[in-house]
């Protein structure tokens, strides 16, 4: 049972501002947070046919997710064993029967084994398994394809998501289909600023008039507990004052497979460190922020729909996406303001409301991994890694 209560007396500070602007800190985060934690690469419906593939890049690592000739989903490093070239350069596509490296022409079977090297007579005999593509740790959860580039502290995805698995299963997301492909947007902020805004609903009342109109004060955040947070908003009984919300509420039909309490709700599951699965009666979507530089992140997202929908449900889905699109645009501005505050000496740091405990709970997860987040003053860049290492050793002692 998750204990999602907010403590009576908790440290209302956020992370030190310097951690949002330190390149050495970002390198630590890439190495010990992003490469070692589960990431959503795509949904199984993005690769429905044999040879279909989807690529996913993260912090210098490259993944290719593909459907093999047995219909199974496979994940490999998108790296040729010969000279390290990208095997596929496109974001998505189909490679019928084999993968061919565009650099020299090595050929791989869809099960990852080496079919053969170009100019094979110029090599000694090569074992197809020894020179196979390197597999990537992968797990399917309710249709979503999770990958992890290096072993890390999180349990298997099924274990990680167990607290919300029954609720999520009602939506039958494993049967969902793509809508309009992948959406990415580059934002001039540190990745943590995106998450800081997303991890609390305190701002919804004034920043997101659409969501306020949709579910208003019913919205609640449950903090991150063991790597997963949960937020939910139930539609208010009013008709809705805004055009999109009014029509969405009017058109959003109960889905026959959903239990009553989920007919009029939007759900959000936060997955540490950087991913959210958001679910409405009409759709499921994921979004994640991927760090590029201390002041540059890419927000990546894709939306999926029920396989069977009426015309009315299609309209409701369009309206849901319109409400969501407005929310995303509003949040991007908030992340820029939040990120800017971290660079000014006059700002003394967050003082968080009980309604923002989700932010603190995310920070606590970060602090547990990298104790240097607890260092209020900025160490010299060259010492960030060694200071963190020393703090981790002290904590372990």
């Amino acid at each position, binding site marked *: 049972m998750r204990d999602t209560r907010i403590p009576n007396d908790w440290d209302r500070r956020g992370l030190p501002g310097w951690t949002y602007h330190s390149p050495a800190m970002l390198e630590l985060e890439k190495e010990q947070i992003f490469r070692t934690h589960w990431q959503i690469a795509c949904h199984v419906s993005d690769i429905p046919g044999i040879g279909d593939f989807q690529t996913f890049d993260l912090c210098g690592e490259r993944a290719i997710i593909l459907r093999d000739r047995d219909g199974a989903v496979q994940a490999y490093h998108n790296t040729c064993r010969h000279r390290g070239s990208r095997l596929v350069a496109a974001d998505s596509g189909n490679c*019928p*029967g*084999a993968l*061919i490296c*565009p650099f020299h*022409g090595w*050929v791989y079977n869809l099960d990852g084994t080496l*079919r053969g090297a170009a100019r*094979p*007579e110029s090599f000694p005999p090569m074992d197809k398994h020894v020179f196979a593509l390197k597999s990537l740790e992968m797990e399917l959860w309710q249709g979503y394809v999770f990958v992890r580039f290096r072993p890390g502290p999180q349990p298997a995805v099924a274990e990680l998501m167990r607290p919300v698995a029954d609720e999520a299963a009602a939506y039958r997301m494993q049967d969902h289909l793509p809508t309009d492909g992948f959406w990415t947007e580059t934002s001039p902020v540190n990745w943590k600023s995106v998450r800081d805004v997303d991890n609390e609903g305190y701002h919804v009342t004034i920043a997101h008039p659409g969501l306020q109109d949709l579910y208003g004060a019913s919205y609640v955040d449950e903090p991150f507990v063991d790597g997963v947070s949960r937020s939910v908003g139930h539609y208010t009984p009013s008709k809705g004052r805004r055009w999109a919300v009014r029509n969405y509420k009017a058109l959003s039909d109960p889905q026959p497979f959903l239990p009553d309490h989920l007919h009029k709700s939007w759900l959000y599951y936060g997955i540490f460190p950087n991913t959210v699965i958001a679910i409405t009666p009409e759709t499921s979507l994921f979004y994640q922020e991927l760090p590029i530089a201390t002041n540059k992140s890419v927000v990546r997202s894709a939306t999926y729909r029920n396989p069977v929908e009426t015309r009315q449900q299609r309209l409701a889905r369009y309206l849901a996406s319109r409400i969501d699109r407005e929310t995303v645009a509003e949040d991007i501005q908030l992340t820029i303001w939040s990120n800017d505050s971290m660079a000014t000496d006059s700002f003394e740091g967050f003082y968080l409301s009980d309604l923002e405990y989700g932010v603190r709970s995310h920070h606590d997860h970060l602090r547990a991994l990298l104790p240097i987040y607890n260092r209020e003053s900025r160490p010299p860049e060259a010492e960030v890694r060694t200071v963190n290492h020393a703090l981790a050793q002290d904590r372990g002692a």
Partner: protein
Amino acid sequence: MTQAADEDNWQRAQLQLPAGQPGSGARRYAAAMYFHARGLMPPQMLEIYRRCYRDDREDPVDLARFEGLAPPPVTGR
């Protein structure tokens, strides 16, 4: 028909895809590599397919003949 024979037939169909079909150059080269690994495609002919892998319009068998190579029976021509 055995599974290996099925695979041979499928790969042969890939090898014989007509020139001009989008993606056919890569499919032909991948199939040529399959037959090379089975000892049915000499390295010189495999190299012809490799040269054509990015040019869907180029017919490897025509190119082989132009270069004075005899295509192996597996090509079907």
